[in-house]
């Protein structure tokens, strides 16, 4: 039997995540892959993007030459503010996160465990200089934390694991995983497959993932 499936591209993954973000949601899109979601949100939905450096209602990048160096996102890139947006200081911004006011936070990941532990800030390499930023606050803060990542490393090893080997960002914080092979839900009793890419049967997804998956 030949398996005929294609992994989702990064844009397709972003589009898939965007599909599940409802009108009126307050959302933080983490650094890296999740930032791609912004451009996939349908114009017809009003969604407020939060940036932890003190910004709600973040808009797209400015036109070249229109950059304002006092208006940046968490990735320190110039952005814009949409009508209805607001500025606030760092303690208020993280109060928004820690206080559970964001509906959804989308984060990249090195690893996610079957109980929803997240590792996304540090490889743990002994010579690495650590840097955490807002990762730990984002992971525990939103009503739902979604992870967006490739299902497998470049070496073909599953990033979905029984237990994270990388240093944790937060325990049992992930609600959903949007990967390039499947969308998975963290149920509290393991992982449930919401959908897999066309042509990828459950047993093959199971084999690639290396941890038990529920249909």
């Amino acid at each position, binding site marked *: 039997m030949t398996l005929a499936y294609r992994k989702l591209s990064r844009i397709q993954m972003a589009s898939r995540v965007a599909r599940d973000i409802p009108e009126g949601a307050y959302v933080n899109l983490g650094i890296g892959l999740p930032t791609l979601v912004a451009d996939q949100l349908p114009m017809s939905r009003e969604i407020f993007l939060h940036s932890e450096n*003190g910004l709600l209602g973040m808009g797209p990048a400015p036109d070249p030459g229109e950059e*304002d160096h006092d*208006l*940046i996102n968490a990735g320190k*890139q110039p952005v814009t503010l949409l009508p209805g947006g607001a500025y606030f*200081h*760092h303690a208020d911004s993280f109060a928004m996160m820690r206080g559970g006011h964001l509906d959804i936070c989308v984060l990249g990941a090195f690893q996610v465990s079957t109980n929803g532990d997240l590792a996304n800030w540090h490889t743990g390499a002994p010579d690495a200089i650590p840097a*955490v930023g807002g990762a*730990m606050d984002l992971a525990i803060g939103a009503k739902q934390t979604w992870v967006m990542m490739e299902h497998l490393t470049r070496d073909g090893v599953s990033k979905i694991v029984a237990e994270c080997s990388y240093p944790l960002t*937060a325990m049992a914080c992930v609600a959903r995983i949007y990967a390039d092979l499947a969308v998975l839900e963290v149920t509290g009793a393991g992982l449930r497959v919401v959908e897999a890419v066309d042509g990828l049967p459950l047993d093959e997804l199971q084999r690639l993932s290396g941890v038990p998956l529920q249909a």
Partner: protein
Amino acid sequence: MIDKVFSSPLDALEGLSDGATIMIGGFGGAGQPTVLIDALIEHGARALTIVNNNAGNGEMGLAALIKAGRVQKIICSFPRQSDSQVFDAAYRAGRIELELVAQGNLAERIRAAGAGIGGFFTPTGFGTELARGKETRCIDGRMHVFEQPIHAEWALVMAETGDRWGNLTYRKTARNFGPIMAMAARKTVASVHQLTPPGMLDPEVIVTPGIFVRRVVQVPRMAPGLAIHKEAA
């Protein structure tokens, strides 16, 4: 008459001592009081503990302070960036101590100092390396970590507009750590781009009331381009 306005950044740092803990506002370049940092380098104080979200970018500002060998310890959330080579070298050479703090805990610990709170329980960081050795507690079924306030002798912040009483407003996301650092330090020095005549700031709109600010100094707006970096926070 109260007049907190100083004529030069260096004058505004008078009294700052070796070994001081200094909060420096800014998130990357936005809100970083570069002119005050330059004055701090000129001032010459050594063995400083610096509180900042980052650990310097490029070769200017905080990076230059580190390069000058003045920083003994840094308390920050995101030291490593593509252009943090100055910090990286000092850290690898063992010349600078790092206390890594999750960004929200950093902000809340600073605010706690300003608000006279002796410490607080936060869910952020529980079960991670950064909570190692810290007190934990289960509150309403959720595990929390005890975090302590971060106090400082000095804070250097960049605001947009100020007056002689020390009232401040900020501009866009350059606000970031400024208002909470101004509260947390015993002596806050604010650089402002505009000095406004007394009573011109709308009392509804003042973000940092003058009670939190000891000294104000007007500085030119930074040339654009210095503040942009491509790394995560």
